[in-house]
């Protein structure tokens, strides 16, 4: 199925929660933007609906655009051999999004990494702690306004 067909199918099912599609022919992978309100239902629909069957979450990542945080889901269907990119935009002052850990188990560590780097809170995640940085690390390193610390546990950090 093409992204446009998937978008129409989703629009029929969820109306306003499915916001837009970006497919101007210039990008290799078009994407659908949805709202975070009804996310779990949308993801379950994408996973279980006949003709969609996105049974594999290839990647989950975060982006810091200047005006918002964005979580990107790269889905793949092993059954039908087609792929889809879903984006969710979050406000900068309160980046909270439902966890899709119970939809695809592979989201577990991906969500922890996104939390570690951007500070995006995944509600419903069973163990949302830092995965790469030390547990007592301050700040979220991949945010655009992040400043490199002067020292860590008495070790000087800058060159």
């Amino acid at each position, binding site marked *: 199925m093409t992204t446009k067909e998937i978008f129409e199918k989703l629009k029929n099912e969820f109306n306003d929660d499915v916001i837009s599609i970006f497919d101007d022919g210039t990008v290799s992978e078009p994407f659908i933007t949805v709202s975070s309100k009804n996310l779990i239902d949308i993801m379950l629909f994408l996973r279980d609906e006949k003709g969609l069957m996105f049974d594999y979450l290839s990647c989950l990542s975060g982006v810091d655009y200047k005006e918002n945080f964005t979580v990107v889901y790269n889905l793949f269907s092993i059954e039908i051999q087609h792929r889809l990119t879903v984006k969710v935009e979050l406000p900068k002052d309160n980046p909270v999004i439902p966890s899709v850990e119970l939809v695809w188990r592979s989201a577990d560590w991906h969500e922890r990494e996104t939390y570690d780097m951007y500070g995006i809170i995944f509600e419903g995640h069973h163990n949302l702690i830092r995965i790469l940085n030390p547990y007592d690390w301050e700040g979220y390193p991949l945010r655009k306004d992040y400043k*490199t610390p002067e020292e860590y546990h008495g070790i000087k950090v800058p*060159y």
Partner: protein
Amino acid sequence: MGLLDRLDNPYDVGPGILLGTVEDLLNWGRAKSDWYMSFGLACCAIEFMAVNAAHFDFMRFGTIPRPSPRQSDFIIISGTVTLKMAERIKRLYEQMPDPKYVISMGSCSNSGGPYWQNGYHVLKGVDRIIPVDVYVPGCPPRPEAFLEGMVKLQSKISHQAIFRKRQNMSQEDLDAIHNRQVEIEKQFQEFQKVQQELKH
């Protein structure tokens, strides 16, 4: 015929005497049987595995990988040292028995390497936490470069003083050692005090 005349005579099988100092003998033994800690960090560790494999055969230096820092003579910092790892490396180094040596392998552990500017999580040179004996440059270094570093370490070990170290030291170094001992004693006494208070 005296003893020295028999040394250079190839036709005399004799008792086989070599003359030298005990220090030379001990250093020869130390330099030729270095055990290292089996420990790798990043892509330099892959190159180090090539050093270990049949083609470069690291064991001909008399080295044996040890799984524990308590049995090792030297440690190879092979790769990027993150701040999270730095504390663990420091602890591993402290667990090694003296005399101990460090080879810093590759640009990352020498100076931070490609992460020197923007690496918020990278230690800019492992010599910020532990003393380094040999630096091997490269990103990553070829196995030949690492072998050169190993030769350098061996020559360093074989020229070190074992006996009468204090006589050859400067007064500054002796004072520093004395001050350190006093400090350690103070810390130990405080520790004992705290322990006794906890008992009561």
